[in-house]
């Protein structure tokens, strides 16, 4: 048993002996200290600089800097490069340092949490980071699990304990963990201290749902599974305390293993920008080559003859070497076409946009006091290009709150809200046990209960008996229900408020208070729910001895099993059911059946027999259930609203008007998912067809997909869509490529695909078919998908459609998809915050998505594009002047401008106006972009900045440079000052060109800026002003007297700018540069206005004729569709009748109910009170008196 060969690098198996630190230390397992920070004070500077110089751009500028130190090459002073480089490096370093500081802080906070460790037989408080593998630690209720533990014992019977794993996998329901029976008996710390079992198990991995290991103790082997494990990140619930043995600690825990390093996301603009920068670099090399060739020619033809006046530099002995040096010299002076400030400016702009997102009041949720947060600052403009949204359902589209909304009893429908002002019913007078949070508006139903309508009574009696809810009574009358699914909780609560209060249960009885009278039924059997049966029943004997079966289930299955005499009620009820379904409500049909004593005896016998069967027990049980659930009498139907988050249908409508396709990926069942699809108007009854893919084999899935496509083509041909025309054109329809054909599908289709079918559809040979089918549909719903599949679907679309994807979700099960999508959005609030932490943006309401995309995303994209266009234009205009000058200065790499001007041009003279435009510009105001979702389209089509736009900018820049060089050339070469001194000297020329350049690019930014805030004014005029002030300062006598060798341009500014000819030249150059641009823009605007231009124009003329977005809202027709959906799981019936969970201690339940805001019980209790903030823990953890 003693393997001393321990592998730190590749651990093959893990051995842990309890209470034996010395033994465990041999293996050097990771401690429980986690470290997510990258630097410390000493390593920061070298490591950070090293990282920064791994960026190509930074290395490039460093290389330039080195080139500039060679005197024969240096065409510019070293400071022209080092000043911007230092600026860039320090800004990035400060940002990195801040980030790391916060990581240090949060690491410390977690590492210093207290936990109780069993050391030498006594419990001692230890910091989390000091917990070692092999320690036994005690956890108390509602504590976070500190490391991955093997559950040893618990205060609950059978060594059970309850955990909530929302942080880990996003599932909100509680999970049960059980210790191995031998250790569960250990109980108290004294026994545990002497426990010396050894665990041999798998090495650390990231599989959350799997664990395999063996416990060796007292010469015996016990196998361990995931059922015995408590993982870090879980929270202990409903359990007073438990003890666990640390198996994996710190970085080895499954939580940390899962949180791995994420890919750094880049936006498509980023990628384009990198390509363009490479191109520009190639362009730069070409320019360098041309000028070097020119230099060779010049030096050979002219320079060699000119040597009497200008000798070659010492190492240069022929024209070729001179050309070689001149190439590098030109690389240095032309490098400003890719200015280093580009990257910094882009970061600054994105940071600004992120702050605007954080500051947006309209994305602030006052109920949960959460503002939207841009967690990454690098993706903003991509928000303006989204084409596909992948959304989680629960907690994202829905609130995961169920409300009893309507019901149909004996052919009479209740709960139709005719008058919206109708007041909420007050149950407290009628029923002291009523849940005050329950809302219902139709007083007819209450009347019917009060007058004692037998059907109504029976209806609610059913609801109070037929369920698997557990109840706790804190004090008399203060009931707390623990339902396994929220729908069930809603039904039982409804019954409670209408006078049929479920009080308590034992394995054999159910006690209710019916209209104030306590009745105890004996529970004879629970015919449990499962997905095939889609119904559950209970058989109870009332105090009078009558045996009755109560059944609730899907209308599709239940209506088939009714007694023929129900025909009339059934037809009315199914009409009601259809109405409810059309409203997107979840429906259940309710029925009962009386059983005689004999029937019961006979059935009970067959049931017992089936129950004991060893083979095919499931099938036999199902058959037995089937046998008794016949000839039932219909009572009515219930309709439960799965409450959508606020504004979901509207948001979806607006987003789809903006041409964004929305896919819902949910772990829910098909019925639930489809139901939500209808209620949030993704699916509508007037859709041409909804395809459901639920095949279990590759073949069937392929076939179903094919059939769907054929149907689509057929239908759209029928409707005379684009495909139809195409096909009619040729006598024999040629086998068009799949994608072509499918792109032209018209008509509204929807696709619903099941998880198991999706698994096949995602296989390599079918994914093309799947994508083309799914993308032809308006709406796609994938149900029963695993977190991995969610990510796969996103990856598939990314790969196949090359479209920008956005994933939005709230649970840990959405993390994979959030991480793999271009943009991940986390809904903060309900299910823990793991999703938020993995996300790039977070906010608390789905409806904020439309503002994030249509307003912030759109603006960001627009601003970034305008910024980039202008930036490239500006730098080409600035730099290319050197190129033209090269032809007149012997290709000697002489710069046109003063070196200080070159240094400051990008970082002082022209940086702020374009930054202000990049941060503040707006083409249309925010409400307009929501009003006209089509405004979003240019982003999706990538119209504002692409290679074409880039070339236009470059061309404009080059044109400007030509004008800026040749106009002064033509004017100044013969001009003189008014005192006769020629103006054609180098310094005058430099000042004239520089001034003209600054003025032209300023006029251009004036043209480009569409939204002149005070900042724009200050920056534009300030930059112009600063140019003149700084120039006069640099050309002043004072500076020259101090450093005569540095400031050659003394006096040039005033001497030049006093000349009218110079100003006339500048004005001329400006006019020649700007007039064509102005004419071109005007023509474009006048002849082919974009939607945004039109909207802007109408804004201007103040024709405020508001037009609401024409949505697909409203239209709903009668459909023959089942609204059944029930978020219920199998197995709880058995647990109840076995009585195993009956000591869900009151304490545990009470505190459970209070702790976690997202738990079902809270949602139930809060129900309609969603507008009040969720209650917190502290105040309600008072223990309940034992009932």
């Amino acid at each position, binding site marked *: 048993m003693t393997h001393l060969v321990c592998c730190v690098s590749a651990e093959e198996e893990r051995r842990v002996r309890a209470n034996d630190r010395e033994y465990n230390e041999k293996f050097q397992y990771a401690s429980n200290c986690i470290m997510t920070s990258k630097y410390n004070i000493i390593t920061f500077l070298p490591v950070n600089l090293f990282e920064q110089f791994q960026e190509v751009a930074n290395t490039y500028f460093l290389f330039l800097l080195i080139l500039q130190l060679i005197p024969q090459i240096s065409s510019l002073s070293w400071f022209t490069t080092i000043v911007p480089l230092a600026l860039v490096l320090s800004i990035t370093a400060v940002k990195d340092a801040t980030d790391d500081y916060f990581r240090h802080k949060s690491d410390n906070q977690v590492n210093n949490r207290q936990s109780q460790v069993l050391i030498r037989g006594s419990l001692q408080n230890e910091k989390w980071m000091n917990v070692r593998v092999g320690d036994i630690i005690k956890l108390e209720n509602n504590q976070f699990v500190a490391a991955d533990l093997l559950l040893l014992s618990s205060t609950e019977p059978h060594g059970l304990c309850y955990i909530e794993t929302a942080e880990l996998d996003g599932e909100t329901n509680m999970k049960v963990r059980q210790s191995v029976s031998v250790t569960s008996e250990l109980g108290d710390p004294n026994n545990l201290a002497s426990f010396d079992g050894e665990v041999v198990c798998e090495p650390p991995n990231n599989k959350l749902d799997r664990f395999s290991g063996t416990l060796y103790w007292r010469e015996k082997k016990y196998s361990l599974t995931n059922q015995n494990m408590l993982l870090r990140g879980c929270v202990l619930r409903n359990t007073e305390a438990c003890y666990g043995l640390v198996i994996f600690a710190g970085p080895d825990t499954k939580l940390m293993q899962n949180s791995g390093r*994420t890919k750094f996301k880049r936006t498509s603009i980023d990628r384009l920008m990198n390509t363009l920068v490479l191109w520009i670099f190639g362009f730069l090399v070409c320019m360098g080559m041309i000028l070097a060739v020119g230099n060779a020619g010049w030096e050979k033809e002219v320079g060699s003859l000119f040597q009497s006046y200008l000798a070659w530099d010492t190492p240069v002995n022929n024209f070729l070497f001179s050309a070689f040096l001149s190439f590098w010299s030109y690389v240095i002076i032309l490098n400003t076409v890719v200015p280093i400030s580009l990257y910094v400016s882009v970061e600054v702009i994105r940071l600004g946009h992120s702050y605007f997102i954080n500051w947006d009041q309209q994305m602030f949720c006052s109920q949960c006091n959460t503002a939207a947060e841009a967690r990454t600052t690098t993706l903003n403009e991509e928000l303006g290009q989204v084409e596909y949204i992948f959304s989680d359902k629960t907690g994202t589209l829905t609130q995961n709150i169920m409300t009893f909304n309507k019901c149909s009893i004996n052919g009479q429908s209740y709960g139709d809200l005719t008058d919206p002002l109708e007041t909420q019913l007050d149950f407290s007078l009628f029923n002291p046990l009523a849940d005050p949070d329950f809302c219902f508006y139709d007083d007819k139903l209450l009347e019917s209960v009060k007058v004692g309508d037998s059907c109504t009574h029976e209806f609610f009696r059913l609801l109070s008996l037929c369920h698997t809810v557990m109840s706790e009574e804190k004090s008399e009358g203060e009931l707390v229900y623990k339902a396994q699914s929220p729908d069930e909780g809603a039904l039982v609560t409804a019954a409670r408020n209408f006078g049929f209060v479920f009080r308590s249960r034992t394995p054999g009885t159910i006690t209710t208070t019916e209209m104030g009278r306590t009745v105890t039924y004996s529970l004879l059997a629970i015919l449990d729910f499962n997905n095939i049966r889609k119904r559950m029943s209970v058989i109870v004997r009332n105090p009078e001895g009558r045996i009755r079966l109560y059944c609730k289930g899907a209308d599709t299955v239940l209506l088939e099993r009714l007694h023929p005499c129900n025909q009339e009620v059934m037809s009315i009820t199914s009409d009601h059911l259809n109405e409810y379904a059309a409203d997107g409500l979840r429906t259940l049909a309710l029925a009962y059946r009386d059983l005689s004593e004999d029937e019961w005896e006979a059935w009970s016998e067959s049931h017992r027999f089936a129950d004991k069967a060893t083979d095919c027990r499931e099938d036999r049980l199902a058959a037995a259930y089937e046998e008794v659930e016949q000839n039932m009498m219909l009572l009515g139907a219930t309709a439960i609203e799965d409450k959508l988050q606020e504004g979901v249908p509207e948001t979806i409508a607006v987003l789809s008007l903006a041409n964004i396709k929305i896919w819902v990926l949910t772990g829910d069942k098909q019925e639930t998912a489809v139901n939500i699809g209808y209620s949030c108007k993704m699916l509508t009854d007037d859709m041409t067809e909804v395809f459901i893919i639920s095949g279990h084999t590759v073949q069937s899935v392929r076939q179903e997909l094919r059939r769907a496509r054929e149907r689509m083509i057929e239908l759209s041909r029928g409707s005379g869509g684009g495909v139809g025309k195409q096909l009619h054109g040729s006598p024999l329809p040629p086998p068009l490529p799949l994608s072509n054909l499918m792109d032209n599908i018209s008509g509204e289709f929807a696709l619903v695909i099941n998880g198991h079918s999706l698994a096949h559809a995602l296989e390599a040979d079918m994914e093309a078919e799947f994508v083309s089918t799914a993308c032809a549909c308006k709406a796609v719903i994938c149900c029963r998908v695993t977190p991995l599949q969610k990510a796969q679907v996103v990856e598939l679309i990314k790969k196949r459609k090359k479209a920008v994807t956005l994933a939005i979700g709230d649970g840990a099960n959405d993390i994979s998809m959030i991480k793999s999508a271009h943009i991940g959005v986390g809904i903060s609030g309900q299910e823990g*915050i793991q999703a938020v932490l993995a996300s790039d943006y977070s906010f608390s309401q789905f409806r904020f998505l439309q503002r994030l995309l249509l307003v912030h995303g759109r603006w960001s994209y627009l601003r970034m594009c305008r910024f980039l266009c202008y930036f490239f234009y500006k730098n080409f205009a600035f730099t290319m002047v050197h190129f033209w000058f090269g032809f007149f200065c012997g290709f000697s790499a002489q710069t046109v401008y003063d070196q200080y001007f070159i240094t400051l041009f990008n970082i002082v003279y022209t940086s702020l106006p374009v930054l202000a435009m990049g941060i503040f510009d707006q083409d249309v105001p925010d409400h307009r972009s929501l009003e006209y979702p089509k405004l979003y389209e240019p982003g999706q089509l990538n119209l504002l900045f692409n290679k074409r736009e880039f070339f236009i900018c470059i061309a404009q820049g080059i044109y400007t440079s030509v004008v800026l060089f040749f106009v002064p050339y033509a004017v100044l070469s013969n001009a003189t000052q008014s005192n006769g001194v020629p103006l054609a000297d180098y310094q005058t020329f430099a000042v004239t060109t520089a001034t003209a350049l600054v003025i032209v690019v300023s006029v251009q930014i004036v043209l480009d800026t569409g939204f002149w805030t005070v900042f724009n004014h200050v920056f534009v005029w300030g930059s112009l002003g600063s140019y003149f002030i700084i120039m006069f300062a640099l050309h002043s006598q004072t500076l020259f007297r101090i450093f005569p060798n540095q400031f050659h341009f003394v006096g040039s500014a005033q001497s030049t700018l006093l000349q009218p000819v110079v100003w006339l030249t500048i004005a001329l150059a400006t006019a020649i540069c700007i007039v064509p641009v102005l004419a071109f823009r005007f023509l474009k605007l006048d002849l082919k206005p974009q939607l945004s231009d039109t909207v802007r124009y109408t804004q201007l003329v103040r024709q405020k004729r508001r037009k609401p977005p024409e949505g697909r809202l409203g239209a709903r027709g009668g459909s023959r569709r089942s609204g059944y959906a029930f978020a219920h799981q199998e197995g709880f019936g058995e647990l109840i009748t076995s009585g195993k969970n009956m000591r869900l201690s009151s304490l545990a339940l009470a505190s459970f109910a209070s702790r976690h805001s997202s738990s079902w019980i809270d949602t139930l209790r809060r129900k309609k009170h969603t507008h009040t903030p969720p209650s917190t823990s502290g105040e309600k953890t008072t223990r309940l008196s034992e009932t």
Partner: protein
Amino acid sequence: MMASSYSAKDEDGHITVSGPGGGTLRNKKPENTAFKQQRLPAWQPILTAGTVLPAFFIIGLIFIPIGIGLYVTSNNIKEFEIDYTGDDTSSPCYNCAKNFSWNNTKSCTCTIPFQLDQPYESNVFMYYGLSNFYQNHRRYVKSRDDSQLNGNIDSLKVGASSPMASRKKKKPSKECEPYASIDNKPIAPCGAIANSMFNDTLKLFYNDPNGTSVPIPLTSTGIAWWTDKHVKFRNPVGTNSNLTAVFQGTVKPVNWHRPVYELDTDPENNGFINEDFIVWMRTAALPTFRKLYRIIQKKNNMAPTLPRGNYTLVVDYNYPVRSFEGRKRMILSTISWMGGKNPFLGIAYITVGSVCFFLGVVLLVIHHKYGNRNNSANISN
């Protein structure tokens, strides 16, 4: 760039998630300021026909008169140019140009007769022009020591051979190489620019109709920038005010005939502050350039400065340009408020103005015929 997605405080999630709205929690609601909500008041210009078309017309209407004014002014300026390179055998300077040698101590003189058809009123400016001369070459431009020219005595010191000494005593800047020193003696003024200074001497004579040749007085001061003369260029101030003594220990540039302290007899125009030198040191932007050489001051209000008639230009031919196919010119010009003759500016203004005006008309037509400015009514979604 990689980022770790896990932040340790995550597990604490619920603690940070809000509580019962009690006053204990900070309200995180963003401030409702115009800045943060991006509602800053803003001017939103838009290119409409109402703004763009008038702009074109206005530009046209401003530029055309300016252009006409400039053109007329430029046409009123009189300019005379004569090339005396001596490339051509018929040229009077052919012999001087052909026989040029750097070793000639005696300068070659040639006389070029010319005729002015019009009288030149007011002050007349005399320029020399060079072509194909790359004063804007990078190596040429930087080859000077402004510190030396500004009278810094250290830059005139002997370059020390030992590194210890060189740290204390400066010598002409490295930029001046290879014209920094000869035999370890610093050159004053150093550098390629100074070395290649234009040293032809030009004299003008008016051939009176009665046969006498009258020399025309040429003013050689007032031809440089004020800042150059008074700030940038200063003679080194040594222990005594005698320039010769100050420049003791330096050598003249290789191509020069005289040392820098003998450029002129006038002490205000000698040494580094000699205006011919200053003018030369202000390098030209383009390979063809002219530099102000002398000013012919107007004498009285009655007679023109240069009456029409025959003149003779007498050149002391010292400056070789044939080796690199350069040209030398002498230019006489009068001047206006906008400087010398410059027809391009006027023509350019007239052209741009007309183009603008024409564009305005064309755009107006296009706008009326095809412009489909949507009104709000037909914004389609």
